[in-house]
């Protein structure tokens, strides 16, 4: 099908209204009817509504606060890596066992970008020899926390875990949820 070129005096114009609509009663069945019905009910135009309710992937995008742990890192002894606080090394000491796998991965990657020996050399900083560099500690930390099983065993003996239970006195009985809520939350995993 072709369209003709416009004649000189032709302009965009409306000449007649659309014929009056007819009301038709349809059967209330089928997905197209359902889509049309919901669209009409919510006064949406076609573009606003997609048929499949898009199940957006659960976002894991909680921003991780960057913790400044340069001093901690520089003070680390690679030989003593077993004693270190892995969460603190990766800069997520506040999240601890609550950190999701994605957050740990993200934290590790950002640490690598900052502290990799090559990066630091390029910036003109002093780098330790091979195994002696504190970067090893970061890799070790990720080796533990990046592995589900190892992370679980580390979490279960986490030295930083707050194991305190407030005393059951008059005061705490009054504000039971306020006082014990966090305790239950900590111990409920």
């Amino acid at each position, binding site marked *: 099908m072709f369209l003709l070129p416009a004649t000189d005096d032709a302009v965009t114009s409306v000449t007649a209204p*659309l014929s*009056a609509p007819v009301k038709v009663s349809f059967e*209330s069945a089928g997905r197209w009817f359902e889509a049309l019905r919901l669209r009409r009910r919510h006064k949406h135009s076609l573009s606003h509504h997609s048929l499949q309710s898009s199940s957006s992937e659960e976002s894991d995008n909680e921003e991780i606060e960057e913790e400044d742990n340069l001093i901690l890192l520089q003070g680390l002894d690679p030989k003593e890596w077993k004693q270190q606080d892995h969460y603190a090394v990766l800069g997520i000491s506040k999240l601890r066992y609550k950190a999701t796998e994605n957050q740990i991965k993200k934290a590790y990657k950002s640490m690598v970008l900052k502290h990799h020996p090559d990066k630091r050399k390029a910036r003109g900083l002093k780098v330790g020899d091979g195994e002696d560099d504190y970067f090893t500690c970061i890799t070790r930390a990720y080796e533990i926390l990046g592995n589900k099983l190892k992370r679980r065993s580390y979490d279960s003996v986490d030295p930083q875990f707050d194991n305190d239970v407030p005393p059951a006195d008059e005061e705490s009985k009054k504000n039971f949820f306020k006082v014990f809520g966090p305790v239950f939350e900590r111990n409920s995993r």
Partner: protein
Amino acid sequence: MAAFGVHFGTTSACLAVYKDGKTDVVANDLGDRTTPCVVAYTDLDQTVGAAAKQGSIRNTQNTISFVKRVLGRPWEDPVTQEYISKSPVKIENRNGGLVYVVDFKEKMIDATPVDVATAIYKQMKETANSHGDGDIHDSVLAVPSQFSEEQRKVFGECASKAGFSVLRTINEPVAALLAYDLGQMDNTLHCNVLVYRLGGDSTDVSIVQLQGGLYRILGNTCTQEVAGSKFTNVLADFLAQEFYKKYKLDIKESRRSVSKMRMATEVCKHTLSTLENAQVSIDSLHEGVDFHSSVSRARFESLCGNLVQKCVALIDDVCAKSNVSSSDIEKVIVCGGGAKPPFVQKAISDYLSNAEVFNTIPPDEVIAIGAAKQAAILTGNNDNELLIGENEIECLSKTVCIKGYDANKDPVLYPIFQEMTPFPARRQEVMNLSPQQTSMEMDICECTDVENPDTAKCLAKIVMKDLPEKACISVTFHLRSEGSLHVTCREETSQIVEQVTVDVCS
């Protein structure tokens, strides 16, 4: 999440489930895929289904069947009166509604049709439970299209009482279309579908128009003259005659003999749907005389010649009622238990020889499966309740098209929205101009006959000038819910835009 479709028929009920993208029928505790809609009251308990049906020979006056026919109907209704005259169960009038008076646990009690239907729904619910998926049973019911609002309401109430959460009640012919996914995948399909439901007790023939994914029942005819039970009767009469010829005994003298004969005949009829030959053998049919015989399919077919003719005649009837000629029917769906005999299906498909026949799903399960598919569409939505008049939708009365020219510079019409397109709608087209063309004009018209450009009435004209070479114009047609048509033309490279709004005639 599982979603259920329930089809409560006059003679039998069927339950289908949609789960993990698949629809299937749920077999009841006996392993049968359909449950007879029969409720029996005995001195021990209340039984539903096959057990009740089997016991009916000895317990005729306390066995209630065909409850669907009277459920939700007042006493004065001719259908009710006819039902009462035939019923072996004692029926009384209470406040304008009927109640069955039955002997239950050695006491006479009243059972309303609602009680009976609820008992059957409860049985279905148990079947649903056995499928094991928690206690939420989102379901869709299917009822005949000629049912009144009152009847639909009563059905819904019975199902809710039994523990189903009823999302919606849909019409049986539409459920049949859904079962075969007609128009569900591709909403551009436009055709007329004949749904032939040959049930146990009545026959419904409907023509459903499918257009833009939406369904409209154009016409429907319902009769009790042809039905599964009539086929059984013909065969039973034939066997009774044979018995009479052999032993000079008339089984009609005894009600129990007649029941026994009917039971045996029904089994024989079912066998004949799959095998060429079937045996009938009844011990002590009448006055202690045993009866053995065999029937061939050909014999059964010749006996039913009359009935099959009536079946076919119904197609003409429904065509006349819905103003559709039988050659305009493109698809046929055969459903209902009575449509199982191969010669019945063949007669229908021979009569509508240019139509595509759908019969891959077992006929007595089609409607339940369709209902389950509808339940799957609805389950999980929050606002499923249908408001009054919500299924009445404004549609275009004429086809909207654009007028273009073919290679010989003769005008042609290119349809954008077919007539009966519901509001709102949107469509996008891409037009390519010839390479050197730098301007264009486009007429938007409405017409009733796309083949005949002279009859088209021009609504608006869109003119675009100073376009770059090799222009590519995307045109968006937007039919708004209030009825106006909005057209936007955009040239892709230069972003020149030209738009126009055509109001609706008030």
